[in-house]
C-alpha cells in the first residue's frame, strides 16, 4: 500500500517537475532586455562578435526549439552550459557551490529546529508565565526583523566592535595561502563527518529502541553513542594535518549560522508553542495526567510527539530549501553558495545556470514533500495511505 502510494507520488512529482521546468524556462526568458542587454553594453563587442556569442549560446534558435532542447536535456540530467562561465557545465558550478550552502544552512536549520522545538514545547507548558511573554515577543521580533539589518548589526557587533568573529568570507586567505588544499575537499569532509555522526545517532536510536524498554537505558545508549561519535570525529580532525583548515571554515561559519538561527528558530518555536497549546487541551492528555504519569512524560511523550507534526513539516521543507541557500545571507557574509549563484545568474541573464539552480532546488523541495508524507505515517499512527 505504502509502496503504491510512493509510486503515485513520484509520478505526480515528475508531472509537477515538467510544469515547473516549463514555468522556470519561460519566466527567465520573459525577463526584459535579454542577453542583448549585456552584450550591447560592451562597445568592444562588434555586432559580428555579438552574433557569434548568441550562436554559441544557442540563442539564435526559436524559443520553442530552445525549450524542447532544454526539456530533453533536463530529463537526461544535462543542465546545459553556463553563459557566464562559458563553457563550464551547469552541473560543475552547482557541484562547486552546493557543499558551502549545504553545510551552512543544514547546520543552521538543525540548530534552529532543535532550539525552536525545545523552546516552543517549554513555552506552551509554562503558559502564562513571564518567560512565555518575553520569549514570544523576542521570537516575534527576530522572526520578523529585516534580515539585512540584523546581519549588519551582527557583523558590526561581533566582527567590528568586539572583533571576535571574522567579518566575511568562508576562510582566511592568510592561512590558506600556505597550503595547496582545495577548500571544496574540506567542505566535503566536514559534511561527511556530519553524515557519519547522523548515521551513528540514527542507528543508536534504533538499537536503543530494540534492546531496551527503559527510557533511561535507551537515552544512555543514544547519548553515549552520539558522544563517542562526536569525540572520535573531533579526535580525527585534531590529529589530521588538515584539521586546522576545517576549524577555520567552522570559525567563519559561526556568525552566519548564529544569524540564520536567530532568524529562523522563532518560526519553529511559535509553531510548536501553538501546536502544543492545542494538543494539551485534548482528552488524551487529561487521561494521561489522570493516570498519574509524571508531568515530563505527559509533556514529552504524549503532548510533544503529537504537537511536533507541523514543526517536522516545517523542518523537512526547510531541509529541502537548504540547497537554495539564502541570497541575503550568502551575499552579506560573502559566502558564495547556491543563493548567490541564483542571484548572479539571473542578473547576468545566464538562463541555463539560473534554471539549473532553480530546478535543482525544485527537485529537492518536491522530494522533501514526499519525505514529509512518508514521515507522517511513522509519526502519526492515525495517518495511513
Amino acid at each position, binding site marked *: 500500500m505504502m509502496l503504491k502510494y510512493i509510486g503515485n507520488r513520484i509520478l505526480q512529482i515528475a508531472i509537477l517537475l515538467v510544469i515547473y521546468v516549463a514555468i522556470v524556462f519561460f519566466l527567465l526568458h520573459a525577463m526584459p532586455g535579454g542577453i*542583448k542587454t549585456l552584450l550591447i553594453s560592451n562597445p568592444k563587442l562588434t555586432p559580428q562578435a555579438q552574433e557569434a556569442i548568441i550562436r*554559441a549560446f544557442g540563442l539564435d534558435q526559436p524559443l520553442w526549439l530552445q525549450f524542447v532542447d532544454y526539456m530533453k536535456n533536463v530529463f537526461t540530467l544535462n543542465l546545459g552550459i553556463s553563459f557566464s562561465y562559458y563553457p563550464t557545465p551547469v552541473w560543475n558550478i552547482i557541484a562547486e557551490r552546493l557543499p558551502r550552502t549545504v553545510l551552512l544552512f543544514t547546520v543552521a536549520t538543525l540548530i534552529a529546529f532543535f532550539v525552536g522545538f525545545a523552546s516552543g514545547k517549554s513555552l506552551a507548558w509554562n503558559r502564562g508565565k513571564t518567560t512565555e511573554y518575553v520569549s514570544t515577543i523576542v521570537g516575534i521580533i527576530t522572526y520578523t526583523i529585516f534580515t539585512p539589518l540584523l546581519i549588519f548589526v551582527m557583523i558590526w557587533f561581533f566582527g567590528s566592535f568586539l572583533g571576535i568573529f571574522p*567579518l566575511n568570507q568562508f576562510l582566511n586567505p592568510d592561512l590558506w595561502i600556505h597550503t595547496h588544499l582545495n577548500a571544496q575537499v574540506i567542505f566535503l569532509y566536514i559534511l561527511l563527518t556530519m553524515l557519519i555522526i547522523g548515521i551513528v545517532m540514527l542507528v543508536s536510536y534504533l538499537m536503543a529502541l530494540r534492546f531496551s524498554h527503559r527510557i533511561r537505558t535507551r537515552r544512555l545508549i543514544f547519548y553515549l553513542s552520539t558522544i563517542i561519535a562526536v569525540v572520535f570525529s573531533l579526535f580525527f580532525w585534531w590529529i589530521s594535518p588538515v584539521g586546522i583548515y576545517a576549524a577555520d571554515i567552522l570559525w567563519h561559519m559561526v556568525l552566519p549560522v548564529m544569524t540564520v538561527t536567530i532568524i529562523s528558530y522563532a518560526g519553529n518555536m511559535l509553531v510548536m508553542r501553538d501546536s502544543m497549546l492545542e494538543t494539551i487541551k485534548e482528552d488524551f492528555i487529561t487521561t494521561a495526567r489522570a493516570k498519574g504519569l509524571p508531568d515530563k512524560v505527559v509533556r514529552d511523550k504524549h503532548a510533544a510527539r503529537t504537537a511536533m507534526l507541523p514543526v517536522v513539516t516545517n523542518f523537512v521543507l526547510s531541509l529541502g530549501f537548504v540547497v537554495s541557500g539564502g541570497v541575503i545571507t550568502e551575499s552579506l557574509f560573502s559566502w558564495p553558495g547556491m543563493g548567490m549563484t541564483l542571484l548572479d545568474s539571473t542578473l547576468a541573464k545566464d538562463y541555463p545556470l539560473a534554471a539549473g539552480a532553480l530546478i535543482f532546488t525544485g527537485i529537492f523541495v518536491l522530494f522533501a514533500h514526499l519525505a514529509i508524507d512518508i514521515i507522517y505515517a511513522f509519526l502519526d499512527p492515525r495517518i495511513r495511505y
Partner: protein
Amino acid sequence: MKKFLLVTLMGIVVAGLVFAGGTANYAMLSDVTSLNIWSMLGPNATAWNFYATMGKYGSLYGMSDLTYQVVPSLADGFWTPLEKVTEDGTTMYVTTVKLLKGVTWSDGTPFTADDVVFSYEVPFKLQMPGNWMSNLPPDLFIKVVKVDDYTVKFYITHPSGNFIYSILMSAIVQKKFWEPVYEEALKQKDPAQYMMSYDKDLLSEPSIGAFTVSQWQKGAYLLDKAVPNYTFKGQQEIEYANGAVRYVIPSLNQDNTYYGTAQGTVNNTFVTGPYVDSIIYRIYQNQTAAVSALMKGEVDYILNPNGLQKGFVQQLQTNPNIKIVENPSLGFQYIAFNLRRYPMNNKAFRVAIAYLIDRDLLANKILGGNTNPLSSLVPPGNKFWYNPNLKAYGDGMTTIQRYQAAIKTLKDAGFSWLIEPKIENGQLVQRGQGLMGPDGKLIKQITMMAPSAGYDPIRSTAALWVEKWANDIGIPLYADLTSFNNIVDAVFNQNFNFDMYILGWGITIYPSYIYEFFSSDQNVPGGFNSPGYTNPDFEKVAKAFLDSTDMNVAREYAFKAEEYLNEDVPYIVLFAPNVIEGYRADRISFAYTKCLDGIQSGYSGYGETIYVKVIQ
C-alpha cells in the same frame, strides 16, 4: 654627466627593488570565471578576470602610463608602413613587426615569433567568440606569418586604426604550453569549446608578465606571485612635457624614445616593479563587506570598475589611514534622439533641447559634484584624442539665456505655440504650451526613457530636470523613469522603439566608437547607431579616421567627425561619472593616483600591480 646620472638612477632603482617585498591585499567584488585565457576573453569576459589574471600575458604593443600613447611592449620598435600586396589574386596589406630579443617566459623559455603566430592563429582559426572576435575582426585580420625567430608579418584586409588598437594589442600566450592542447582540440567536434573548457595545470602556465596566478580558492581568493625573472623589472618609463616617452630596459640593454626627442621637462618617471612578492585578491560578494575589510585593514585597496558608492566615502573618511581618490571615468552618459521619428528628426528641435541643458548646473549644483560635466564624446582626460575646440550649444549661458536661445531656434525653424513662452526682465513669466511643428500640427507627448532612481539617481535626476526645462518652453517632454533593461530592450531589441532615452557608454582610449555609434552600417536593428544618424559628410571623415594608421592624421579626421556630430546633435553628451576609490595609505603606495578611469583601470595596469609598494 649623463652617464653618471643614469648609473645613479639605476642604483636607486636596484636598491628600491632589492628592499621591496611584502604582500598587497586587494578586494574584488566577484570571483573570476576561469583561469583559461581562451575562456577569460571569451563571451564571459569580466573586469574581475582582467584584474587578477591578465598580468601574466603580454602583447606586442601597449599604452604609456597617463599619456595613453601606443608604445611597443614585446615588439622592438614600431611596425613598418603598410604595403599593398596581392597574393593568389587577393589584395591585402602587410607590415613587419620586429620582436624584442632576450625576453623570457617565467619557465625560462625564450619568447619568439612562434608564440606570436600561435597566439593569433588559435583564436582566429577556431573563431573564438567574445573579445577574441573583436580583437581579431574577421573582416580585417588575415594572418600572421613568421619570418624568423624575431620577426613576424601581419596581413590585413585594409588599413585601419583597429589594426593597431585591437590586433596589435591582442594577448600573447606561450606556444609550448598550449600547443598540445590545441592539437587535441583540433581532433574534437568543437575545438573552440575544447580550448575554452581546458582546465588542467593552468596554475603552471608560464607567465611573460610581472605576476602569475599561483593559487585560486574558488569564491574566496586568488594569489598572484611576482615572477622573479620578469624581463621588464627595472624598466624606466620617462614621460617628457614635449610628448616624448623614453623606455630604458636594463635587462635587454634597450633605450628607446618615441613621439619626439628625450629632452626638456620630465613630467613623470615610472620604474617597473614588481615591488611586492605577492598580491592576494580577496573576494567579497558586496561592497559593504569590502569597505568593512578596508576599514579593518584586511585589504589595502578595493578593485571595482564602478568605484565606490558615494555613501561609503564618508564612512571611509573617518579612518585617517584611508585615502580617497576621485577620477573621471572613461565613459559618458548621454541623451539620444530617435531621428527616425518626428520631431526628433528636426535638427532645430534637437538643438533647442541641447540649448536647454545646463550640464554645469546639473553636475555641480544639482547633482552635488558627483559627476563631471562633459559635452564631447571624448573626455578631456583622453588627452591625445580630446578636441578642445568643440563648443557645446549654450556654453556659458544662464538658464534664461538658454530658454531664449531654444525658443529662438524653434521659432526660426517654423515651430509655434498655442501659448508662447514669455520671458520678461530675466524671468520666465509665461510657460509655453501646445508646441506646434513647422507644419502647424500639434506635437504629441515625447517620451524620454531614463533609468529609475533605484538604478541610477544621477541619470533619473538629470532626466527630471531636462523634462522641466523642456516643459517650461512648451516642449511636451515626459521623462519615463524605468528599468535599465526596459530601455535597452526598447532601443536595441525592439527595432528602435523610442523617442529619446538616457543611457551611458563605457568607452576606450582609441575612439573608434565615434564611427561605430553613428555609422550607417550600424543603423540596423541591434546596431550601435541607435539614433539612426545618417550624414554622408560625417560618414566620409569618420571612415577616413577609422582607416588611418597614422594617428596624427586619424586625430584630425576624428576631430572633424566630432564637429559634424556636435553640429547635428544625434546625441547630447551630459557628463562623465567619477570613479571614487579608496586605499590604505598606511599600508601601500601607488606610482600615481590621478588618472583616467581610476587606479583600477586597465590603462593603469588594473591596480598598478607593477608599481604598488607595501610600506614596510
